[in-house]
């Protein structure tokens, strides 16, 4: 299994541990990722400013992947919806496609529509396969409760993202439950983490994250699992400052899914960057340690 691999802006700027976990876990599973050379911003940040700027930047990424001739794998939900929506805009509007290809031609690039865009979660679930993933799991998290966060831009707009049932998704729940941890019901599961609102109104963005912390805790979650680097920033990197802002305490560890999968495959926590998560992942590591003692006793 071989893919083009595009990192996006968010990960190297804020959450290198997401990438570390993806590289280690895919390597262990025998999934090969070839870095998409020369790629930059997918354009999502500038969609509010100018539709055509986003279209141009996103098409450039798609055209670079076309050239490499492999399906394109992403880590970031924002990149995923931007690139899947752009694919639809270009498919539905032939004049946009002509205009875009004129823009890309001087760079010796062309959007052909060949490339399939996939999130890393789809690679695990669809391409590698849930059962096969399950067969790689050697460490059980039975007894732990997880609040899963899909993130908006895998699920919506579903017409373009075509990821899962947008009202009752199960892919991430299933992937979490191969570790025997329980994916719990929690009321705000499908809601936004607030990240996209932060640049214009920090308070509003933080409000959404806070609502989610409280809902997850009320539902009895031991930790959260996300699929999205932006959610990861909102929930993990910003959790201490959100807690301080509201005078509250959440202490809710937040794992990026490949980190959990790696742990379940018996990989070392440092290989998966758990020591780099902002909110201490100690409770999860302690659980593993106690289990080990139990097993040998």
């Amino acid at each position: 299994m071989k893919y083009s691999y595009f990192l996006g802006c968010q990960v190297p700027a804020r959450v290198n541990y997401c990438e570390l976990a993806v590289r280690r876990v895919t390597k262990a599973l025998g999934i090969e990722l070839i870095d998409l050379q020369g790629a930059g911003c997918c354009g999502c940040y500038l969609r509010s400013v100018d539709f055509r700027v986003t279209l141009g930047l996103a098409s450039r990424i798609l055209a670079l992947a076309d050239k490499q001739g492999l399906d394109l794998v992403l880590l970031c939900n924002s990149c995923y919806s931007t690139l899947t929506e752009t694919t639809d805009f270009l498919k539905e509007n032939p004049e946009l496609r002509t205009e875009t290809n004129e823009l890309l031609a001087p760079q010796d690039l062309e959007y052909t529509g060949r490339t399939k865009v996939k999130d890393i979660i789809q690679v695990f679930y669809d391409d590698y396969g849930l059962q096969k993933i399950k067969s790689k799991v050697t460490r059980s998290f039975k007894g732990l409760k997880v609040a899963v966060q899909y993130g908006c831009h895998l699920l919506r707009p579903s017409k373009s993202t075509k990821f899962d049932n947008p009202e009752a998704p199960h892919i991430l729940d299933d992937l979490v439950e191969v570790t025997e941890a329980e994916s719990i019901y929690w009321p705000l599961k499908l809601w936004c983490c607030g990240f996209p609102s932060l640049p214009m109104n920090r308070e509003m963005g933080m409000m959404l994250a806070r609502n989610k912390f409280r809902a997850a805790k009320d539902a009895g979650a031991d930790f959260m699992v996300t699929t999205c680097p932006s959610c990861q920033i909102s929930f993990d990197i910003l959790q201490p400052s959100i807690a301080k802002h509201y005078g509250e305490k959440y202490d809710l560890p937040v794992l990026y899914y490949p980190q959990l999968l790696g742990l379940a495959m018996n990989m070392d926590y440092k290989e998966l960057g758990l020591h780099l998560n902002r909110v201490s992942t100690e409770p999860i590591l302690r659980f593993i340690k106690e289990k080990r003692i139990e097993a040998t006793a």
Partner: protein
Amino acid sequence: MTEETIRDSELDPDFKFKIAKTYEGKTVLWCVQCGMCTSDCPYSEVWDVKPHQVIKMVLLGMRDQAISCQSIWQCSTCFMCAERCPQGVELGRVMFALKNIAAKEKGVPEGYRRFGQQVIETGRAMEITASREKERERLGLPKTLTDSKSIKSLLKKLKLDKLLKDKGGKKQ
């Protein structure tokens, strides 16, 4: 919505058609004002202008109010509204259409201006600081190589630099 008298003479009855002609706003005319979007938007409780009211402004031709309201910029782009709209109105996208017009006419807000500059200069929306690059090295992650020159020339053709510089005040 704040209470004020709406005068016929201040309305732009063609505005809804202009929005409907944009790629992002083409579904706006299908709205029946049922309010489903507002009941599902995570910001409904705190916004002065609720999601369905933004659409109503467009439909009524309240052009200035629609492109001046804070809701369009605070929208988290979560697309819950669009997903659940019984009429197929892609409200989250309509918000983008309105922001594009606001950016052109009133200037790009500071937060986005910074992202724009960053992409022009580095090819990326977020700076990778030296300490982040070092962390990557320590972790054995490859160097991030961006073809910033190609991206810059593409953005030049799309006139992003000009858009970021203009402080607005021009009518479309």
